[in-house]
């Protein structure tokens, strides 16, 4: 308990809120890595997920890629890439962003792919038979209906990236990981805990903001379906009308 009190005291100390090693600056750095990573990963994974979901092609790829990427140890890959590029710590941002993107791709890909997959095939068929082009089917039907799952993927990716972006400090970059990486060798566990606490709080705050965005962006009709399907699943007593001839 004492450790917690010390950590909170450390965080509340005004002198830790200024300068390059101050909390605001570290949080901004941390958010910077996270934003760049999620933007790049979204561009890659959501595009790919929508393509696979719409066309049904390369479906095996999703399972394979997401599984394989998830199995990669982030820290190991980071050190390997840093050594491979041979740029040492002078250009550490590149390997850092790469490993974080690798981490963010599986949930984004799965969210986009399963979102499009979850759209009723009959709805898509109806859209096509009305004369929608494939692009119109994707943007006017599949993406709006897949949005809850796509944003779910983004939420999950953001959480994982925020938690893991601490590794950036391992190869000399900033972010909240600095507190942990700097404090470990000198056994300053209060400061380690400070880093961990701040990462946790940041993750929770971001998740809260994303939940809010999710609410805003889900089309009203989709919400109506979710509500009505929830009602339906809770009141199974009324049997559906059969299609007897």
């Amino acid at each position, binding site marked *: 308990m004492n450790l917690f009190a010390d950590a909170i005291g450390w965080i509340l100390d005004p002198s830790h809120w200024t300068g390059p090693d101050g909390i605001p600056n570290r949080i901004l750095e941390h958010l910077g890595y996270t934003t760049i990573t999620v933007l790049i990963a979204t561009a890659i994974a959501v595009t790919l997920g929508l393509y696979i979901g719409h066309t049904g092609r390369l479906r095996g790829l999703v399972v394979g890629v997401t599984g394989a990427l998830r199995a990669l140890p982030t820290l190991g890959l980071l050190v390997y890439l840093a050594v491979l590029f041979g740029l040492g710590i002078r250009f550490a941002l590149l390997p850092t962003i790469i490993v974080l993107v690798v981490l963010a791709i599986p949930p984004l890909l799965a969210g986009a792919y399963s979102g499009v997959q979850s759209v*009723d095939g*009959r*709805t898509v*068929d*109806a*859209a*096509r*038979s*009305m*004369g*929608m*082009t494939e692009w*119109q089917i994707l943007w*006017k*039907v599949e993406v*709006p*209906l897949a949005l809850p799952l796509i944003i779910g993927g983004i939420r999950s990716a953001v959480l994982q990236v925020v938690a893991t972006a601490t590794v950036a400090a391992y190869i000399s970059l900033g972010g909240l990981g600095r507190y942990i990486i700097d404090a470990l060798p000198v056994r300053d566990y209060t400061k380690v805990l400070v880093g961990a606490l701040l990462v946790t709080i940041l993750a929770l705050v971001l998740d809260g903001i994303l939940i809010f965005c999710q609410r805003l962006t889900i*089309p*009203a*009709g*989709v919400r*109506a*379906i979710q509500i*009505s*399907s929830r009602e339906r699943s809770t009141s199974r007593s009324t049997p559906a*009308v059969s*299609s*007897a*001839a």
Partner: protein
Amino acid sequence: MITFDGVSKRFPDGTLAVDNFSITIPSRTTTVFVGSSGSGKTTLLRMINRMVDPTGGAIRIDDEDVSTLEPVALRRRVGYVMQNSGLLPHRTVVDNVATVPLLTGVPKREAREAALQLMDTVGLDRALAERYPSQLSGGQQQRVGVARGLANDPNILLMDEPFGAVDPLVRSELQQELLRIQKELAKTIVFVTHDIDEAFLLGDQVVILSTGGRIAQVGTPEEILAHPADEFVDNFIGAERGRRALSIKNVHGKDVVVDGTGRLAGILRVPSGESSRTV
């Protein structure tokens, strides 16, 4: 006029859904394809708007070979109504009805006004305009589906078992509504069903299909009922089973009509002006 000329469809897995099918569908009347599952009736319907492309033969709309038409443009000028209504769940009723006009560049305000008028046409309360499909009953959803099919004022309306998934009461209501709409608008309707009663009720021309899109008989409901081409048709229309084999029974001086099993089907009214008949 829609013409099927020696049309065949073999699916990639080898099944022959339709084999050398030819028929002429006259304009401004209702033609019903009726058959059990596997008769290729839906495949035939979907070939008209190129949702399915035939592997042999040709389909022409007013002497225009559909295979030469761009599928998206073709589908926009042909109305399509499907069994589960196929409404876009994230769009309101009025937006669903206005979908095709909006795709073809009709201004939003105009398209919505036209959609509201179409809701009147199909007997939907305008108060439902801002509801979402999931908030409607099955019958209401089908009405929206019909309104959407009519939205671009197409000459041709394709209907794929549109009333198959609603309960019998609502179905009968929707059938009457369609008859009324057709009287008003006189579209070329191609209607697919497995229900022979529905086929006889709605069809000016009825096409009875057996397996593989083979035509068992084509004709008006009266012709088919009076002269079933073979045993298959006879069985299919239920004449054999006695449901339609009506006879007259005299009960205390009044003529009543009973079916083959002896159940009461109705009462015989002799039109005034004709001499009363004795049985």
